[in-house]
């Protein structure tokens, strides 16, 4: 049993050792020059021409909320298509799920999660 997977073990250990030694070596051997150019935005080696404008953090919030509810609603599609076969019990079983989604949605709404400002 073990012979079969010994190679995998060896592989894992070697990989770890390499990763560790590289991390360690760069720590010890590499020169350190904090500040200066390192503070600049990295543009694949090209010197940035103008100060970079980041996306507002609100953008991420909206995107994240969209993702969450998108995925949640997506789970309802298979349910909706087979509702006829699932019958009454299938209908009732999905309600708690909908309630959870609705409560969080309501919470976000009332707390102003969807407002830009």
């Amino acid at each position, binding site marked *: 049993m*073990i012979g079969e997977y*010994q190679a995998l*073990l*060896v592989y*894992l*250990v070697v990989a*770890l*050792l390499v*990763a*560790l030694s590289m*991390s360690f070596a760069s720590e010890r051997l590499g020169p350190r020059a904090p500040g200066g150019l390192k503070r600049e935005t990295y543009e694949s080696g090209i010197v940035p021409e103008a100060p970079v404008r980041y996306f507002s953090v609100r953008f991420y919030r909206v995107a994240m909320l969209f993702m969450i509810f998108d995925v949640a609603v997506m789970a309802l599609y298979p349910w909706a298509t087979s509702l006829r076969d699932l019958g009454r019990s299938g209908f009732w079983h999905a309600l708690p799920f909908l309630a959870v989604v609705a409560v969080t949605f309501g919470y976000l709404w009332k707390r102003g999660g969807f407002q830009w400002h």
Partner: protein
Amino acid sequence: MGMNGLATVLWPPLFGAASIAALGHGVPRRWVGAWASLMVLVSFVLALGPVLALGHLPVQARAMESTLFAWVTGFGPAVHWRLFLDPLSGVWVLVITGVGFLIHVYSIGYMDGDPGEARYFAYLNFFIFAMLLLVLAGNLAVLLIGWALVGLASYFLIGFWYERPSAVAAAKKAFVMNTLGDAGILLGLVLLYLRYHALSYPALFQVFAHAQPGDPFFDWTAFLLYVGAMAKSAQFPLHMWLADAMEGPTPVSALIHAATMVTAGVYLMVRIYPLLRLAPGVEALVGDIGAFTAIFAASIAFYQQDIKKVLAYSTLSQLGYMFLGVGVGALTAGVFHFLTHAFFKALLFLAAGSVIHALGGEQDLGRMGGLGRKMPWTAGAFAVGCLAIAGIPPFSGYFSKEAILGQAFNEGHWVLWGVGVLTAGMTAFYMFRAFFLTFFGPVRDEGLYHHAHEAPAVMTVPVLLLAVLAVIGGGFGRGLDAWLAPTFHAYPGAGTAALQEGPLFSTGLTVGLAVVGGLVAYVLYGVRQVPAKAGTDRIPGRWMLAAWGMDQAWTWAVVSPLKAVGSAFESAVEPAVLDGVRAIGRTVAAWAEDLRPLESGYVRRYGLSILVGLGAILAYYLIRV
């Protein structure tokens, strides 16, 4: 749960302590004291049932056991919470709750108006619980817990007035010395457990009954247990804490440091008489040190200036008598002396407490005098106590002291007997010295005298009840002898336990010396009205007043070297060790030293640690399989 109600004896004082601690601040102060006293009284009444039932059991099996529950079940036999009542512990239980009740009632008056009244009664109730646990313990483990809890309660009560530095220092000293004793018992207990896999009295005594003396194991265990008894009962050289313990409130001194707790050592020594049979050397040591403590403490009491210190040293001296009794095999006599001592010493302390109370906290004999006119009841009670402790017939102390000395003589311990007789004379002298200085002679401090008054009834009634007991207590001897006989017949080792009559000339000599001692005190302090300080400027007196320099000796011989070792340790070894420890901590911290700000490097290190761990685990299996 115990079917015979042993456990129920324990709960009222514990409940009292808990309820007072929880609710004591919201209710009127008087209620607190009354409630605490009631709890002890309930305990006393509940204790009467099992103790009386004990008398109806067959003589061969006059003991009750009740296992509350298993405490820890180990690889070997389990250690149980086990209670045990036999005639011997019955005596202690009744004295603890009975005298304890009287002292509680007295405390209502004494502590009236103290801001810590609720705290005081909570401690006091807790002490009663711990003491009951100690004497009702069915095995050495439970005994040790009671033993330690009693020490804790005593620590709290000595340091009750914690604003006084002297009280805190005294509490600390008592705690340290008692812990020394606890360690002794713990070691003895561990030795016994390792050898016999049992800790309960019947199981151990059964083994001892079939063993023969000569094995050093018995000497060691008996000695270790004796060290515990020594510390708790303040035997030389672990005696100093008791004098300092007088920093606590006076009723505490009466209850803990005279009537009950300090006799726990006597209880333990009598309890393990089957073991003492196997360790004759230790038994002899008990008697010798007891006799030495008796005369040594009596000599210190000669010139004390503080009324409570006189009583403290007299307690030491009387404890010496009890141990002397145990050492010469006069077990019943030792217990008898415990009983009478509980009466008359509690009486003396409470009477002294009334005086101190009347004088607004003054304890210096040099500022008292003439108080007999203002406090006739207290003076009378104190006189009864003095007569009892001096061993003047027909007061109680006469009978019990006679029993010890007479038996010491009969058994051929003439040196111990001689020391005891001499001490009896000294006792009479210093007790009557305190009596005459306090209640007779000229008024030495007008201001104090002017304000003095007889104590309220709540204080005088318990004192007078104790006075009655101190008078008639000697009559209990015969009954006690018969009551304890089943305990001492249960196992070999107590062949000479029963009370004996001493030769007439021994009695005559003792009483004669006591009378002479009392008369000398009367002439010096009652007639010639020598000041309290007299004699303390010359050599023996000065040394006696300074307790023979034992405190300094301890400081010089033990404390200073220990301190030196400690500071050497602190300066040399500790930095090395701590540095080593800190170095490990620093190594870990250094991994992330420059990463205090919120930057990924810090977390990377932690992640690395996880990876290293994972790699090590995998490598371990790679090598192993």
